[in-house]
């Protein structure tokens, strides 16, 4: 039981890494989609 903080830390790192990257990708895709929509509007498509 004394090693519980190590177990917690390892899984916390995995989840933070995966969720952080997923959020970053999601935000980037949303921004790109919005910019694309604006550009298409400017070009009249």
């Amino acid at each position: 039981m004394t090693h519980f903080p190590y177990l917690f830390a390892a899984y916390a790192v995995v989840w933070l890494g995966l969720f952080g990257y997923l959020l970053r990708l999601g935000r980037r895709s949303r921004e790109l989609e919005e910019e694309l929509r604006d550009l298409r509007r400017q070009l009249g498509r």
Partner: protein
Amino acid sequence: MRRVFPAVTCVTMLAALYLIFMVVPTEQQMGIVQRIFYFHVSSAWMAFLGFFLVAGASAVYLWNGSRGADRLAEAAAEVGVLFCSLVLVTGPIWARPIWGVWWTWDPRLTMTVILWAIYASYLMLRAFGGEDEAVQRYAAVLGIIGVLDIPIIMVSVRLLRGMHPAVIARNEGGSGLVDPWMRIALVVSAVALILVGSWLMQLRVRASRLAEEMAALRRETEARQGEVA
């Protein structure tokens, strides 16, 4: 498919976590800290898979100049580096209570750091090398050469007499997964993390495609503005 894939990934991940924390017995020598292995090893397998994909897609790019292959290679490298980073962080967290040190220059650990550095360099080359086609070809060559490090990592425990334990088979200094539930948990964790990695790659490829589409539209807008002026 875009909705089914994340759902299947989440269910598999929940199953893996249930097995790791509720079903698998506690290992006698290492105690609960051994449960780090399931995600640590699975992350390593996902990283290797990502880097093999980089090599394969890079070879296709060099062969026929396919933009799709190049996009896949870049996405696989980014996801591979993410999982390799998780391996390099969770490993020392396991090592501290078991070996008494955070890090040691064991052959397998050293070769894994080298693998990480190769693909981190690949990403930096892609990020700062510009849109030049020559840079993309250099990166593709690096992506192919880098994968040669993986077989060395795989055999390093036996051939180079490192202290890193062999996970599946029992060997000198290694624990092995003695209980069948341990092996089942490892397989389910590996499937879960491979699904997560594939999902992330899919999203990354989509973001690249959007960025390319936007760059093309920007060029078109600038050309039109130039004509008007």
